[in-house]
């Protein structure tokens, strides 16, 4: 076989495999959307799920997913950014820094089910938070923090060194330099990374099975007292998220339209992830422009 022929064949194989990957995604998205999108309407998005009757919705689940995400981000962002800043600005190269980096790496590669079990054991049982939004949010924090640390560290390292020098030469404290000079420059990258991580949180299910639970109490959207059981914002109520709902409906669903609900929920979930992706790209570009240059 001549070199040229080999080259042709190889090129063909590479292109064919790449096309296969695109086809896979298109096929999967197409399947989910075709099956699910016809089921999505306002009623589906807002109604409560039904146990045995058809026509249930995913309103509480959708709310739970969003609420859990927000709570997680509120806990994670300050902690993750703090630790990321430490890694980028305070840590001196040495054994300790190397081992912290290892910790971040290991923590971000823990299987979600193991972290979920840890949550079950420690948060749900030992601390007695029960199956709750809070347990779920803390477990998701464990996932999200290493990601945030990496994103933040990288973003800070990408800020031109001269910015920091300029601040130092003016006699600013290190903390002032970090918060007032470096952070605004690093922020677009941090936000993009956070949104992408948020997409992952949104889809997480395995860990939440054991922490946020498989149920949702009846939510009363007029009750905003966080200690009341039926209040949507009570952090100690169980909360079944959208991805957990898919798993449950798929496996335990009694209602006659369980398959459609699973498909519809999957479509909503995938659309949300798509939105997160687009939002991350858009926000990143917009913020970068806003922070760096010409109005």
């Amino acid at each position, binding site marked *: 076989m001549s070199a040229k022929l080999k080259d042709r064949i190889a090129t063909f194989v590479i292109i064919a495999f790449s096309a296969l990957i695109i086809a896979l995604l298109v096929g999967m998205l197409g399947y989910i959307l075709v099956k699910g999108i016809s089921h999505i309407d306002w009623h589906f998005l807002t109604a409560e799920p039904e*146990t*045995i009757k058809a026509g249930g919705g995913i309103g509480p689940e959708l709310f739970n997913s969003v609420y859990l995400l927000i*709570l997680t981000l*509120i*806990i994670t962002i*300050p*902690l993750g950014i703090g630790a990321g800043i430490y890694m980028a600005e305070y840590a001196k190269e040495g054994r300790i820094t190397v081992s912290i980096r290892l910790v971040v790496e290991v923590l971000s590669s823990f299987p979600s089910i193991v972290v979920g079990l840890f949550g*079950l054991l*420690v948060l749900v*049982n*030992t*601390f*007695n*938070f*029960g*199956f709750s939004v*809070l347990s779920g949010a*803390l477990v998701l924090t464990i996932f999200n923090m290493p990601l945030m640390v990496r994103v933040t560290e990288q973003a800070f390292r990408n800020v031109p060194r001269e910015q920091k020098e300029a601040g130092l030469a003016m006699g600013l404290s290190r903390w002032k330099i970090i918060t007032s000079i470096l952070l605004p420059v690093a922020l677009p990258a941090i936000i993009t990374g956070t949104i992408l991580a948020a997409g992952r949180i949104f889809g997480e299910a395995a860990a939440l099975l054991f922490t946020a*639970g*498989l*149920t949702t*109490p*009846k939510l009363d959207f007029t009750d905003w007292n*966080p*200690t*009341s*059981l*039926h209040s949507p*914002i*009570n*952090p*100690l*109520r*169980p909360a079944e998220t959208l991805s957990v709902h898919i798993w449950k*409906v*798929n*496996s*335990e*669903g*009694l209602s*006659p339209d*369980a398959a459609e609900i699973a498909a519809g929920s999957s479509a909503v979930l995938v659309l949300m992830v798509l939105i997160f992706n687009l939002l991350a790209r858009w926000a990143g570009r917009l913020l970068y422009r806003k922070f760096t240059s010409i109005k």
Partner: protein
Amino acid sequence: MKFGKSAVLALTLAFSVSLAACGNNNNSSSGSSSSNNASGSANTASSAPASAESTLSGSIIASGSTALQPLVDQAAKKFSETNSDVSIQVQGGGSGTGLTQVSEGQVQIGNSDVFAEEKIDDAAKAAELKDHQVAVVAMAAVVNKEVGVTNLTKQQLVDIFTGKVTNWKDVGGKDQGIVIINRPSSSGTRATFEKYALGQKTEDLKGSIQEDSSGTVKKLVNETPGAIGYLAFSYIDDTVQSVQYDGVDPTADNVTSGKYPVWAYEHMYTKGDPDAATQAFLDYMVSDEVQNGDVVELGYIPVSKMTVTRDKDGNVTNK
């Protein structure tokens, strides 16, 4: 299981500080309500009596069996309507989790598909739990509609689930291989089926499929040629073929009359005697309103209708 106290303490500290650090509304409120929750038992009558018709108050958490959860949930909503000071939270998590949590005092009610003695290794711990049987769930073997079998004897089922018979033609069906869709070894449904349908424990066969959830079992039996599984009555519909057991139809009437033996109680366990609010709720669960209404609606069999009773060792007596 006991961990080093200091480790737990350190961890508590770390988490609470981390919560304080972010200092947001939700979290600060969670702190206060978590301490409410941590007090464990129901919080009786601390607030002023709100409604005239009810003197009960407290908060109840029931967790455990996912099979029982819809029923308890539905009943709890109704109960709260008339007893507005009692808040009831119903959580899933599985029978094992429910028993763990009630035994550790984390919840007031642990829902279980099986007798606590079958799950809890520590006999003393199991003895602390008080059983409240609120419904009966019966199950039947189901087969793929194509296999051409509508009745199986106990022996035939044993032969199938132990792998002695591997083709439907040997039990009166088509010439087709048998695919077993079983449950995992920890499943309460499997325990019931093995105990009362097969009369013996079975080993997991090589190549058999195991699913914990009834929905998946139904889907697979429907789709897989030659499949056999077992489902609670409430899951059985026309996508699968339910099978007579020794010639007895799997119907609710046959269960209540004691003719059809493959059934089990749904249990709601409390640790010792329940407090007033919990007791009232448990009483409500076995009231006619729930038994003839929600229980039947959700596909369980009313425990009140049963003409026979059964103890944890499987001894059946007429009422």
